[in-house]
């Protein structure tokens, strides 16, 4: 049986899902950045089942019609499997002359891209990149071009194992884990549940398009995003001083941003203007991203290789992503050889990456690679710092529950008040337990003791009901988290002053809006009560809760088909949608699924203050 599509035009008119034909290995990066990729032949991988398909995303990408039912049919299933169920024919296969049936081999090659990765001994990106991923191709729909890549499609020569052990591995070799080129169902599900929640909450992120399941929990996890390029795609060539390939990657990336109209400015008078505009955009995106990560307690292991993030600050690779329930600012992941950065160190890493993009712009303009320190005080670095603070201020006002026009007004006319509130907010948010640092299963941490979401949610309703501010002890009673011990909660003079400052500044916002916008204090508090109850919902997902939810899903998996999994993931993301301006409707679920969802809610609730 011939499983392989020869070309997307082969069966036009006969096929119901023509646009899948574009995902055939062809990608402009291959031609435009020849030094930035490795190409592999691939063969159809038998035995796969569609475990999940993201109908919603597929509609945005134009892969299925807007009116398509959220149900797999035999044609669609066949299309998904023929497109994504593949394994590369890697160096091991070639050297060992392993033969595969001709009819199973895809006509085009698929690329693995090169990028810098700090776990490679080379440390300069000569050997690193997509170690178990290939790019399926791209599709263009409604003015947006989407990249699609698949993880778990076989071991490439860019994997750390290949380069550390200096040998090629057969795909699936049980003697190594990460380097064997396969991925697991659990990884796919974790990315699915986490990315759908974060995407609903306006985080830029990769999203899971499909999961193909094989025996023994092995899977191919297909991801999509309008641009899957990471800073590390630039940094390897920068480190090597490879002007030609660096210019190619940069030009390629910029052309996609222009094509997708992702930037405000789309034409440039000179290369210099274009490359510095890229650096400027990176400064803004990374400032916004690192501020949002801090404010939403997202732990993303940012490091100098720029491997764990997309160019627009979007999240990629959920392996090390966590969301904390409280500001556990000293948590470090233990990666055996070293500890990760903390949530507060992410900003410095993001800033470092921006500095690298200024270095890139300068290098591409002058053809001379100056040292990174040369750009320490470049004006674009100030853009980053300014934008970071602005983003922090905006995030905080949004968290209180103010509407956009009130946020804009407070930022424009009452900035000192906002700054004052941010300081006092940080005082509580960053207060630590007297217990000190201790070990957790995957790292070390020191507990935060206050839950800012609780106070932000309750404050407006209590002010509204009581008509007065809270006493010191009432304030502490509300804000204390389950991590706080009696000794952590002492009402010292400093703490009393901070409680007073917190409440008086909060009130001063209301007074300012009352005066300038003629909106009474009661009206504002009512509006804040409603908005804040959504924004600061009691149950918010954490990294631990996602892990436990995925364990539950894995247990239910044999009985859950792909459509059911789609419904559950969608329902879960709706439940975690904390956008007060979006109406969230619940869909009718069968009784069996209601129980599963109930289980999910309990998990989220139990883990809500953890890591």
């Amino acid at each position, binding site marked *: 049986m011939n499983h392989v599509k020869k070309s997307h035009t082969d069966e036009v008119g006969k096929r119901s899902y023509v646009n899948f034909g574009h995902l055939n290995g062809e990608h402009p990066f291959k031609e435009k950045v020849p030094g930035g990729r490795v190409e592999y032949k691939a063969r159809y991988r038998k035995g796969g089942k569609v475990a999940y398909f993201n109908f919603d995303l597929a509609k945005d990408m134009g892969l299925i019609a807007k009116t398509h039912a959220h149900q797999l049919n035999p044609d669609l299933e066949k299309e998904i499997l023929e497109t994504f169920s593949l394994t590369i024919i890697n160096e091991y296969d070639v050297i060992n002359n392993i033969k595969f049936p001709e009819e199973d081999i895809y006509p085009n090659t698929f690329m693995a891209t090169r990028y810098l990765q700090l776990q490679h001994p080379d440390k300069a990106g000569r050997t690193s990149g997509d170690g178990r991923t290939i790019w399926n191709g791209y599709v263009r729909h409604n003015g947006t071009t989407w990249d699609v890549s698949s993880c778990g499609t076989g071991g490439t020569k860019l994997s750390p194992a290949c380069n550390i052990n200096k040998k090629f591995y057969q795909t699936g070799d049980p003697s190594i884990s990460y380097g064997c080129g396969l991925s697991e169902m659990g990884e796919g599900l974790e990315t699915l549940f986490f990315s759908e929640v974060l995407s609903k909450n306006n985080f830029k992120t990769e999203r899971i398009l499909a999961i193909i399941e094989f025996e023994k929990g092995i899977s191919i996890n297909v991801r999509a995003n309008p641009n899957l390029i990471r800073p590390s795609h630039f940094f390897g060539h920068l480190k090597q001083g490879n002007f030609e390939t660096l210019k190619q990657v940069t030009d390629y990336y910029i052309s996609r941003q222009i094509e997708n109209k992702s930037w405000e400015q789309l034409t440039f008078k000179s290369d210099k203007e274009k490359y510095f505009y890229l650096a400027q955009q990176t400064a803004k995106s990374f400032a916004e991203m690192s501020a949002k990560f801090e404010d939403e307690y997202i732990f993303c292991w940012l490091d100098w290789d720029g491997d764990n993030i997309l160019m627009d600050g979007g999240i990629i690779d959920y392996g090390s992503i966590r969301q904390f329930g409280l500001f556990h600012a000293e948590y470090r992941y233990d990666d055996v050889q070293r500890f990760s950065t903390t949530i507060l160190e992410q900003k410095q890493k993001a800033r470092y990456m921006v500095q690298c993009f200024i270095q890139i712009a300068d290098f591409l303009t002058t053809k001379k690679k100056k040292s990174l320190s040369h750009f320490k005080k470049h004006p674009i670095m100030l853009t980053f710092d300014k934008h970071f603070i602005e983003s922090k201020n905006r995030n905080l006002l949004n968290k209180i529950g103010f509407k956009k026009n009130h946020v804009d007004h407070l930022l424009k006319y009452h900035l000192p008040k906002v700054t004052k509130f941010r300081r006092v907010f940080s005082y509580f948010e960053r207060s630590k337990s007297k217990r000190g640092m201790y070990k957790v299963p995957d790292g070390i941490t020191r507990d935060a003791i206050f839950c800012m979401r609780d106070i932000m949610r*309750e404050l407006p309703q209590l002010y509204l009901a009581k008509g007065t501010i809270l006493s010191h002890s009432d304030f502490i*009673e509300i804000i204390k988290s389950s991590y706080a011990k009696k000794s952590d909660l002492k009402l010292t003079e400093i703490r009393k002053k901070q409680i007073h400052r917190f409440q008086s500044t909060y009130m001063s916002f209301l007074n300012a809006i009352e005066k300038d916008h003629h909106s009474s204090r009661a009206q504002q508090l*009512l509006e804040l009560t*409603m908005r804040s109850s959504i924004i600061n919902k*009691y149950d918010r997902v954490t990294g631990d809760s996602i892990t436990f939810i995925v364990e539950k899903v894995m247990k239910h998996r044999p009985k859950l088909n792909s459509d059911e999994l789609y419904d559950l993931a969608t329902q879960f993301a709706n*439940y975690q949608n904390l956008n007060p301006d979006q109406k*969230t409707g619940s869909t009718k679920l069968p009784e069996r699924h209601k129980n599963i969802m*109930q289980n999910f*809610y309990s998990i989220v609730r139990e883990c809500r203050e953890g890591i």
Partner: protein
Amino acid sequence: MNLVFYSGGNDKENQSLDRSFVELLGKKNPVVTFIPSSSYLSEQEFKSFVRHYSKFKIHRFIHFPVDVPFDNILFQEVMRSDAIHMAGGNTFYFLHCLRKAKLLPQLKTFAQKGGLLTGLSAGAIMMTEDIEMAAYPEFDRDENTVNIKNLSALNLVDFLFFPHFRNSSRYDTVFKKYTKESEKILYACPDGAGIVIRNDEIRFIGKCYAFSKGHKFNIN
């Protein structure tokens, strides 16, 4: 005691009941607490509730989900509210959570001390002796997803309440049969109809029906 039993329906259908509710509040600038039957997406329900009752010049509200832990400060304000509204949803889950949070005696005291207690559908059934009506009739019942056995509720009135009633022979048959063996009167209210109790005086709003000793009676 002051109680309002809402069956269900939209804002327009409930106009008369709402007017009675506001009359019973009888106070300027009251505080109204909204207790959802489940915290799941209850923020959206709360928003709709606030938007609706703001039209009656009520501007102070508390959102008080009972299936998540709460602090004593907010709870005290809830008990000081002028009215507490219990929303609709799965009656079994709602009762399970109210009992787990030890709120049944507190709500009973609130009502007995003159606080205005209102309920819609599941919330209204909660004010009766037990929630058996939620499991009845078989073709229109809540699932006992939490598998609770003790169905006793607030027991504030001596009648049974059935919300979302449809005036059809299908319902008539089962309710006649049910009340043949029951000492209690069953009041069945279609959406938009309901019952108002003011100082122990009962008033029916909209077209309501009573089932007693195997017979059906029209009210209003």
